[in-house]
C-alpha cells in the first residue's frame, strides 16, 4: 500500500515536472520574441514626413515587446520556483527517474498521433501550394481523401464518396458561387 502511494506521488510530481519544463521552454521563446520586438523596433527608421512626436511609431511596439518579455519573465520565475519545489519533493522521495524521456514529457502523444499531426500540417501546406497550380476539383478531392484516411477512416467506397461529394460541394461553393480564381 505504502509503495503504491509512493509511486502515485512520484508519478504526480513527475507529470508536474514535465509540464513545467515544457512551460519553461515556451517562456524562453516568448521572452526572446518580446526582447527582439522591443529592441529591434527602436532602430526602425521613420518615414521622412514624421513630426516630432513623444509617442511615435516605436513607442507602443517597444512597450508591448518589453511587457511581453517582462511578464513572461515573471511567469518563468514562478515556473522555476515551482520546479525547484517539485525537485526538492522528488529528492525527499529518493527518486532519480529521467524526466526528459519522450514518454514522460508528452504522455498524451502517441506515435500515431504525432504522425497524424505532422501529416495534417504538411498536407495543408502542400494542398495550399498546389491548388494554385492544379485544378481545384482534383486537388481538393485528393486532399480530402488523404485527410480522411489520416483522420482514421478506412479506405472504402463510402470514404471515396465522402471525399468526392465534399469536393463537389466545395467546388460549387468556392468556384461557382464565390468565383475565386482557383
Amino acid at each position, binding site marked *: 500500500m505504502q509503495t503504491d502511494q509512493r509511486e502515485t506521488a512520484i508519478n504526480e510530481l513527475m507529470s508536474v515536472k514535465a509540464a513545467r519544463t515544457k512551460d519553461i521552454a515556451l517562456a524562453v521563446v516568448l521572452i526572446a*520574441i518580446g526582447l527582439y520586438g522591443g529592441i529591434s*523596433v527602436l532602430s*526602425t527608421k521613420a518615414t521622412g514626413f514624421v513630426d516630432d*512626436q*513623444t509617442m511615435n511609431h516605436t513607442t507602443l*511596439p517597444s512597450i508591448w515587446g518589453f*511587457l511581453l518579455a517582462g511578464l513572461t519573465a515573471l511567469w518563468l520565475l514562478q515556473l522555476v520556483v515551482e520546479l525547484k519545489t517539485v525537485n526538492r519533493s522528488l529528492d525527499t522521495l529518493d527518486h532519480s527517474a529521467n524526466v526528459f524521456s519522450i514518454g514522460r514529457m508528452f504522455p498524451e502523444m502517441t506515435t500515431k498521433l504525432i504522425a497524424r499531426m505532422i501529416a495534417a500540417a504538411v498536407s495543408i501546406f502542400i494542398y*495550399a501550394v498546389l491548388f494554385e497550380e492544379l485544378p481545384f476539383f482534383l486537388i481538393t478531392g485528393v486532399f480530402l481523401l488523404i485527410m480522411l484516411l489520416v483522420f482514421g477512416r478506412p479506405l472504402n467506397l463510402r470514404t471515396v464518396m465522402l471525399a468526392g461529394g465534399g469536393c463537389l460541394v466545395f467546388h460549387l461553393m468556392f468556384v461557382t458561387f464565390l468565383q475565386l480564381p482557383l
Partner: protein
Amino acid sequence: MIEGLLSGFGHLADPTNIMLILAGTALGIVVGALPGLSSPMAITVLLPLTYPFDPIPALVLLMGVYVGTKLGGSFSAILLRTPGTPAAACTALDGFPMAEQGKAAEALGYATVGSTLGGLISWGIAVTSIPLLATVAVEAKNADIALIGILGLVMVSAFARGSMLKGLIGVMLGLLIATIGLDPIDATDRFTFGVPQMMEGIPFTAALIGFFGIAVVLSDMQMIGRKSELIADKVSLKLPGFKELKKRWQAIVTGGTYGVFIGAVPGVGAESATWLAYATAKNRSKTPEKFGKGEPDGILTPEACNNATTGGTMIPMLTLGLPGDGSTAVMLGALVLHGVEPGVLLMQQSGDLVYAILASLLVATVFMFLLALGAMKYFVLVLRQDRAFLFPFVLVLASVGAYAISNTLFPVLVAIALGIVGYIMETRRFPLVTVVLGIILGPIIEYNARVAMVIAGNDWTVFIGTWPRTILVALTVLLVLREIQKGLSEQKKRREEILTTASYD
C-alpha cells in the same frame, strides 16, 4: 429606438436574410452539439464565405451560428455527459442524471425552454440598454477609446481561463503581432523583414483561421476514433407545461439576468456565468439536495444563463467595440472585414447594421426553439458520429478561406504558422482569445492613443485628464493589483499542494 428596431426587422424581411439566419442557427446547433467543435471555430471558417455578402446578411448568418451553438452544447451534455461547449458543462450536472432516470426527452425540453427564455430575456435587456449606452459612448474621445481598449484587454486577461499572467502574456503577443506592417499614423514599416505582403500587416482573417480553426483541429486530433454512446436509443423532445414553468420562473430569471450581466463583462463569457448562476439557484432553492440528481432547475438555470450571454456580449461589442467572448471577437473581425469599424461610433455610423444584428438575435432565438422542436432526432443523430471525419472539411474551408482573403498563398501560410503557434499555446493552457483580442484591439488602441497625444500637444496627462479617464486608469490598475495578489496566493497554494503530494504518508 423603436424606429431603428423596426428598420432592423425590415432588413430581416428579406427572404435571403431569413434563410441565412435559419441555416446559421441549424448549423450552430449541430456544431454546438459536437464536442470539440466550437462557436468561434464555426464562425471563423464561415467568415470567408461571407466575403461577397453585404455586412447585414454576413452578420445575421454569424449571429444564427452563435445562438444555435448555445443550445446545441446542452444536447451532448444531457445525452453523453460530455458538454458540446464549455458553457454547457454545468447542464450535465442535472441533465445527465435526469436522462439516466429515463427522462431524456424532459431534460432536453427543459434545456430548450431554458435557452429560449434566457435568450428572450437577454434580448429585451440588450435592445433597451444598447441604444442608451451608445449615446453615452459616442461622447468618447481618442484618449477614452484607447483607455477603454486597454481596460478591455486587462478584463479579458483577468477573467479568461487560466491565470491573468498568461492572459496578459497572450494579449501582449497579440498586440505585438498587430504592429507588424505599416504603422497607422505615418506609414513607417515595422517587422516586415522585407516581405512586401507583410506591409499591410498580418491578415486578420488568416490569424483567426489559424488560432480558431487550424489550432483547434490539431488540438482535437486526440478525439479521433472516439464514438459516442448515447444514454437513450430513441430521443425526442418533451416541453414542460406552462404550470411547471410558472413554478420555476425564479430559476429562469436568475439564469437570464446572470447571463446578461456577466456576459456583458468583456472576456468573461458564458463559461463562468453558468456556474455562478447554478450556484445561486442551488443556494436559493428550498431543496438544494436535489441538485446534481436530475433537478429541472439545475437545467433551466444554466441554460437560460448560457443563452442570455448572447445578449450580454452584444452590449460591449456594439457600444464599445469590445468582445464579450471568443465568438464576439470573431464577429468584431467580421465587421472589420466588411468595412465597418467597430467601436463607440458604430451606432452613429452604422445604426442600421446594429439594429439588424439585434433583430437577428431575436429571430435566431425563435428559430432555435422551432428547430429543436421539429428536428431534435436529426440533431441527436449527429452525436452518434465520429466527429473526426469533419476535420478534413474544416481544413479545406480554413485553407481556401485564407486563400480567398487576397487570392494569394501568403494568408494561407500565415494561417498555418499561427495555427501551429496557437496549438502550442493551447496545449500550455493559454487562453487564445486573449491573443486574438490583442490583434483586433492593437491597431485601435495605437491609433487612438497617438492621435490623442498629437491633439494634446504631446502631453501624457491627457490619459488622466478627465474623471472618466482617471476612473478607467484606476480600474485597470486595481484589476491588475487584485490579480497579482490572487496569483501570488494561488502560487503558494500550488507549492503547498506539491509538498502535500510528496508527504503522502
